[in-house]
């Protein structure tokens, strides 16, 4: 970097910000630039001028700490008040907490990973502008994991399923879906990580990944989580502007970047979209009081806002909507039902519980989904008869997982919701299965990466998960019989009823 020109007059806000951030940088002369930044060449991205990065926000350390400290003071006051007043008793139902169990097990550890890897960008990007923006995001992300843990800490004291979330995140079969997603991003190069997380996760899919939990909280009496959601909102809007600036910066720096970025958009759309399968079933099945259907959420937050807005703008750079997006759009009619039906049968090996939708709930599903009565209601009606006959259904075997997204192979053929979809590729004489064209496409670009995946079912069969029987594996997961299975009659359910009975008798709460 060259010496700043002599300023004859007082600094403008922009120049002052520059003096406090990017002007701190210098071009090294005792080591080479490649030694100083060893990771920014191998992905094939060309950056001609890092100074063209437009700072997406202009926060200095003093302003950041002041603002964030005030936000945290307000948030923790709410958490303390809620805990003191036994606020958990005013949730819609204890079964609501299944959504939050999924959140702390599956999502909060991703915030932590983002904290660590934005620190990597805060060190290893060549430009001081994006380095400082990344460092701020790294700090925000440790805020999010910690405030989420503190928010849910009070529920952990009274309800099951929360108690071993980091241990479970590293091991449990359905949690390898979000874990492998983020491991994939972190193990990518710095620019791909920026597109995977900064752009795709934080911008493209954030309203589908994050917001449904917070909206679900506000509809179900979960004041702490709702307050956390609002408190994180201003952080998230900074992250969104960073992600948007990142993609524009890469696209504007060199035309050769466009096809690389396009593939990352294709890949990370599908990778992120598959993680949202867990959220789709949460929205449609786990919330006692519904916010909106997955179908409606996907239509509004993705089809209207992203395809109808963002991708229109990105077309200027030659970027097209992600591959296989039309399959995702079609799937919004059936996704949540297929996923929940599977989780229902496997919840004896999960740290959340499931139950047959009530009649009222089925009416809502039927009103929101044209194919529900034809395709899915009969399954539940049959299961109701099973339960009445004392035979609640749990799957006995272990499911086959998609090599890429690691979700059980439960998805159906595009255009045919009654035929299971199976794709496969051969790599080094081995056969690998995929749930969809999107996952196969991802594998075929980087087979040497995806063959490394720690697939939970394979690992169980190889004897790496505590033993050969389900109780062995559950013990290795640190799951107790109270953590999963059927909600009705579970310890959470019984306690909930007893506490409310007690509340009525004593006139409290």
């Amino acid at each position, binding site marked *: 970097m060259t010496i700043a020109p002599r300023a004859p007059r007082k600094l403008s806000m922009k120049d002052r910000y520059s003096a*406090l951030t990017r002007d701190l940088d210098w071009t090294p002369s005792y080591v080479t630039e490649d030694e*100083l930044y060893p990771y920014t060449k191998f992905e094939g991205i060309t950056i001609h001028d890092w100074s063209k990065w437009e700072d997406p926000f202009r926060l200095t350390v003093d302003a950041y700490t002041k603002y964030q400290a005030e936000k945290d003071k307000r948030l*923790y006051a709410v958490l303390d008040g809620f805990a003191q007043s036994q606020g958990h008793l005013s949730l819609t139902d204890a079964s609501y907490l299944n959504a939050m169990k999924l959140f702390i097990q599956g999502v909060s550890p991703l915030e932590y990973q983002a904290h660590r890897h934005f620190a990597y960008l805060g060190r290893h990007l060549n430009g001081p502008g994006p380095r400082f923006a990344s460092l701020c995001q790294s700090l925000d992300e440790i805020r999010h994991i910690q405030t989420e843990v*503190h928010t849910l800490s009070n529920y952990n004291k009274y309800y099951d399923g929360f108690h071993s979330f980091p241990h479970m995140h590293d091991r449990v079969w359905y949690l390898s879906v979000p874990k492998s997603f983020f491991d994939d991003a972190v193990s990518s190069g710095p620019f791909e990580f920026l597109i995977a997380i900064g752009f795709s996760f934080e911008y493209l899919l954030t309203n589908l990944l994050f917001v449904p939990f917070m909206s679900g909280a506000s509809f179900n009496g979960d004041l702490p989580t709702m307050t956390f959601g609002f408190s994180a909102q201003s952080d998230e809007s900074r992250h969104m502007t960073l992600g948007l600036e990142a993609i524009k910066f890469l696209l504007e720096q060199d035309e050769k970047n466009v096809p690389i970025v396009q593939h990352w958009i294709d890949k990370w759309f599908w990778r992120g979209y598959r993680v949202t399968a867990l959220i789709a079933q949460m929205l449609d099945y786990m919330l006692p009081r519904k916010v909106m259907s997955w179908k409606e959420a996907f239509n509004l937050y993705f089809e209207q806002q992203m395809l109808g807005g963002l991708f229109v703008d990105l077309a200027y750079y030659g970027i097209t909507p992600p591959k296989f997006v039309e399959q995702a759009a079609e799937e919004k009619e059936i996704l949540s039902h297929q996923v929940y039906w599977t989780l229902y049968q496997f919840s004896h090996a999960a740290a959340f519980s499931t139950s047959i939708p009530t009649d009222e709930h089925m009416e809502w599903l039927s009103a929101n989904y044209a194919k529900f009565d034809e395709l899915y209601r009969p399954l539940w009606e049959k299961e109701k008869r099973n339960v009445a006959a004392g035979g609640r259904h749990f799957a006995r075997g272990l499911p086959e997982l998609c090599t890429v997204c690691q979700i059980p192979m439960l998805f159906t053929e595009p255009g045919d919701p009654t035929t299971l979809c199976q794709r496969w590729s051969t790599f080094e004489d081995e056969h690998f299965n995929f749930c969809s064209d999107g996952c196969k496409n991802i594998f075929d670009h980087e087979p040497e990466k995806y063959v490394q*995946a720690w697939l939970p079912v394979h690992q169980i069969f190889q004897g790496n998960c505590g033993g050969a029987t389900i109780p062995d594996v559950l013990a290795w997961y640190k799951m107790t019989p109270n953590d999963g299975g059927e909600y009705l009659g579970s310890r959470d359910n019984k306690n909930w009823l007893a506490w409310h009975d007690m509340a009525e008798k004593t006139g409290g709460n």
Partner: protein
Amino acid sequence: MQFELRTQVIEPQRKTFQHLIDRYGDRPASRYEEGTIDIQAMTNFHYRPLWGPDKDIYSPDYSVLKLTDPYSFTDPRQFYYAGYVTSRADMHEAFGSTLGYLEKRGMFDRLPEAWKGLFQDVVLPFRHYEAAGQMISADACRFGWGTTTTQCFGYAAFDRIGNAQILSRVGIAFGGGTAEALAAAKKDWLEEPAFQGLRKHTELMLVERDWGKAMVALDVTDQLIYALLYDSLDEAALTGGAGSYSLVAQHLVTWFADQRRWFDALYKAWVADPEYGAANAAAIAEVASAALATAVAALTPIAAKADALVGAGSGAALTAAAQAVTTKLAGVGVALR
């Protein structure tokens, strides 16, 4: 007299998360503990990094400095995010009022010429050193093993850019609201012979890929710099009519005392480790000895510059600071060469 508020009493099933119960028993855990202990993923990583396929995404092997149980170390300040930003908001607010006062009363203009020279020619270039401190600490935050250490490194990274901004704001005030003083200081950092030893040392620390070695080298250098610039000149500034120097320096002295609290505890944890203690002590000794020798040589011309300007015994202060580093590390069981 107390009033009797009736609340529903429900016995909790557990007082905290299972991983904390396993470590500390079923007792209420602090927010620091719940937000920190065992939070990092430890196993079953799915893919090797494309940017470094020889190691896992997280691994104790990114440094020779290791802890058998990374959570045997805890931050004596118990900083989780909320505590950290609250503390730093106060620090920066205090600095802001100092700076506001100095500007309002034209205190920088009233400095004796020698002390003006000290600010401009000796202190301001260190904003670039602080920026390097940010990058080294951010790297340790990414590559360390276990959240109790990486969290300290991450906050330290943010502290360092904060320090660079403190020095830069002083520089802007010093330049009458322009970037002139900063530009001159940057030119010195890049070209002035007295700074080249330090800049070379800084750039070499930046390319050290072992985060533990880089952090120890940085810390040894920090101990010299904070003693030389901010501690030892304080008394001379007060007697030499440069009270505004003392007013600025106190904020950096306060910060460094805070930094020492966790770093000294980390040295102790490294050396006391049941499995790696001896190897850690040997590695720290090697890195710290080399860093100390290099940093003393690099800072000697800068101390001479300070002595030529204000004659406050900076050369002697540097020697004393180097001795203090040796004594401090000897105190935790690390014998420097």
